[in-house]
């Protein structure tokens, strides 16, 4: 037990020194000093509760994916049938009840239609899974239903894209080190440190920014539209709150242009000095836009953002240059936000803020200062108390605690984990358990001395007997810590991380390191009695 050959001592010291060295950059940071950028800097990440900033949890409306897919499929089917040779006429198209159904008008064309449609139902992935099931009922009616596997894949893709879009939008804000991670099936966590005004951020993320240009259905009677009676092939959309128009308007569902083929979007002003967004199409978008405006001169078309009509101006002349101006009662801020959103692409799926936590930077700095102060006061009291109670053995324990705190910091910095306020509380508890290990050992040594064991033997028995309880206690604590980490969220995890790391390191410092020091003392001084 007390035998520590030189190689073992060197190893133990090397491990300790590496741990302590890794803690140095973090300590410098906590003390408010800059760390020279030339040196490697595994600094510990401060949680938002300490650094200040915003934490936003976004949830996607996955039910939407099904509707969008069915809509897209409808358009694909229409095009495919139109482009077939000879063209296949279809009618009575319905997208209700989560499926697409339509009639092939000529019974003789059913087989031809099936041949064209079947390849369209195959998945894009390598799984060989079909994305759609296709049925023919009553001889002429086709029914397309999205499969669960296909839908899942679509949600997955939509979430990946949404995460990218969110990242691009936040990058435009120019904040430092935002964290954007997917969580579970349908959530995205956004953490932006040091942000004072989360409103701006939320405005940016809350906007789907799906821009569409659709022709206004001029055949629809305003009275019908007001009553919500939809003319076939059209849909009724409301005007945006600040939009250039009242009530709602009927637009043609198909044949419009999606606003995703842009190369640029900038906030600007129109001739009256009102804020607008200037957009520039890419080549294909520009071509489509030119074709649409050329074919429909003199007719109104609606500019639609996220399902609301911003404005419905007349097409006075073909717009061929590939750029356009979007007006619709913007403020400079909202025009700017829209420009950013358009530049970074539309979200493929609506996102909603379901949890939001903001901590002011003042409070964060205050929390660190007070937390560290509390640790220092409490820690000093414990160190003093240990020294008065166990003398030399108390000093060994104190050195172990000191190293323990540093090594925990070092490991956290290297692993890139985050220190939160509950994490500081975790430190407190870890100090408690680490002290407990030494108290157990020292009390046991006292006891064995009282029973008349000789010095070396008392120390050996003390370490051996105490170790059993220490290990059992620590294993149960690790169990609790791991479960906390698995099930817990936010603050609970911050606490669990420190607890788990702290338990492992405290066994190392409080048991192994102190034993090495005690062994060194015994070998060097060969005391006949222990003051313990």
């Amino acid at each position, binding site marked *: 037990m007390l035998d520590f050959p030189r190689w073992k001592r060197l190893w133990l010291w090397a491990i300790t020194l590496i741990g302590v060295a890794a803690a140095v950059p973090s300590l410098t940071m906590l003390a408010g000093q800059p760390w020279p950028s030339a040196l490697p800097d595994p600094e510990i990440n401060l949680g938002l509760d300490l650094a200040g900033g915003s934490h936003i949890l976004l949830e996607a409306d996955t039910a939407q994916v099904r509707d969008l897919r069915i809509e897209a499929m409808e358009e694909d089917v229409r095009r495919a049938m139109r482009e077939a040779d000879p063209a296949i006429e279809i009618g009575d198209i319905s997208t209700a009840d989560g499926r697409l159904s339509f009639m092939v008008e000529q019974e003789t064309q059913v087989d031809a239609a099936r041949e064209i449609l079947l390849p369209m139902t195959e998945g894009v992935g390598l799984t060989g899974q079909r994305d759609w099931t296709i049925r023919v009922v009553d001889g002429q009616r086709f029914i397309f239903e999205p499969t669960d596997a296909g839908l899942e894949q679509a949600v997955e893709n939509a979430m990946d894209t949404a995460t990218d879009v969110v990242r691009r939008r936040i990058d435009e804000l120019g904040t430092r080190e935002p964290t954007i991670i997917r969580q579970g099936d349908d959530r995205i966590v956004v953490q932006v440190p040091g942000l004072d005004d*989360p*409103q701006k951020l939320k405005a940016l993320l809350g906007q789907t920014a799906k821009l569409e240009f659709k022709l206004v259905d001029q055949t629809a009677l305003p009275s019908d539209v007001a009553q919500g009676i939809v003319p076939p092939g059209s849909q009724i959309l409301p005007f945006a709150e600040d939009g250039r128009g009242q009530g709602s308007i009927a637009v043609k569902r198909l044949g419009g242009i999606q606003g995703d083929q842009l190369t640029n979007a900038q906030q600007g002003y129109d001739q009256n000095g009102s804020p607008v967004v200037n957009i520039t199409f890419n080549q294909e978008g520009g071509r489509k836009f030119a074709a649409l405006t050329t074919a429909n001169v003199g007719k109104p078309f609606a500019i639609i953002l996220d399902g609301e009509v911003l404005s419905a101006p007349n097409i006075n002349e073909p717009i061929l240059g590939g750029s356009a101006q979007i007006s619709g009662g913007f403020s400079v801020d909202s025009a700017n936000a829209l420009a950013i959103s358009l530049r970074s692409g539309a979200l493929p799926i609506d996102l909603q803020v*379901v949890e939001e*936590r903001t901590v*002011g930077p003042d409070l964060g700095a205050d929390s660190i200062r007070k937390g560290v102060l509390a640790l220092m006061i409490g820690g000093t009291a414990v160190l003093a108390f240990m020294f008065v109670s166990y003398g030399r053995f108390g000093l060994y324990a104190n050195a172990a605690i000191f190293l323990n705190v540093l090594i925990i910091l070092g490991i956290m910095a290297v692993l890139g984990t985050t220190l939160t306020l509950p994490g500081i*509380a975790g430190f407190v*508890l870890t100090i408690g358990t680490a002290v407990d290990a030494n108290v157990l050992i020292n009390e046991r040594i006292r006891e064995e001395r009282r029973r008349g064991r000789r010095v070396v033997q008392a120390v050996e028995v003390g370490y051996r007997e105490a170790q059993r309880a220490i290990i059992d206690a620590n294993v149960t604590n690790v169990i609790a810590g791991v*479960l906390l980490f698995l*099930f817990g969220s936010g*603050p609970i995890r911050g606490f669990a991380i420190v607890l788990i790391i702290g338990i492992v390191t405290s066994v190392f410092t409080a048991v192994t390191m102190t034993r090495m020091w005690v062994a060194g003392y015994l070998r060097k001084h060969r005391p006949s009695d222990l003051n313990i």
Partner: protein
Amino acid sequence: MKLLKLVPDDTNVKFLRWRLPFYIVSLILMAASWGAVATNGLNLGVDFVGGQMIRATFVESAEAPVAELRDDIAGLGYGAPIIQRFGQPNEVSIRMRLPEGEDAAQVKNLADQMTNAIVGEMEASYPGVRIDGVDSVSGKVSGELFETGMLALLAAMVAIAIYIWVRFEWQFGIGALFALVHDVSLTLGLFALTQMEFDLNIVAAILAIIGYSLNDTIVVYDRIRENLKKYRKMPMEELLDLSVNETLARTVMTSLTTLMVLLALMFVGPASTFGFAAAIAFGIFVGTYSSIYMAAPILIWLRVNADSFVPTESATDKQEKIARGEV
């Protein structure tokens, strides 16, 4: 140097003599705690019920004008706020229910409007107020947080009991679990009684209490196990008393050192850890008590005895012994 000894050597306190009255008192306290939770309810924070919470510090005054603030905010027409001081007397948390709305998006919009109105009102009426943070949790997320929090608590307790059962004996597992239920109950009772805010941090605190209390229980149990092997003939009550007395110095030392750090955290640390630190400090008292009076006596009633740790000799063991010439 003369060293400090808080507990004299070789104490011989008859702890177990009073086990029955203490058990009755503890059971009554546990029942009272659950009663308090049932009648008073826990003051659940936005983490668990959803809603908006605004934290603010009245930087220029010593004490936050809670009553005035309550009237002012109620006057805005979003319903009555729950305002509580926490940490320092000039720091408050203001909690509001989420406004009613047709869908999640609308609720969120209304909630944002509400927060802006409240913050605007506070900044206008109270110069020197500092908004420290805003938490907004939707009903769906808060439900999940509550579920996972409770799941973590339950899973931790069961897993730990199983570990102790494996390492010791089934009676010890039950004893430890019972002590944990006792500690958690009393802590919940404290929160129901004082109406301190119960949020995710407090769940973490309760888990810390579980860890600490268990640590204590294991130290006592370890000594009981050791003594059971050592003193095969000693009556159980005497043996338990001996074990508790032998570990008494350690129990006192560890409780004191941990309390020192916790008190520092309570009174010097940041306001948001006050509830957390207070909960653990309370848990240390309860946990220490329960290791001695809950976890130990139950072993008598569950009929632990000196044979519990002597493995029954198998035929092969016997043959080996004979071969070694020990029999």
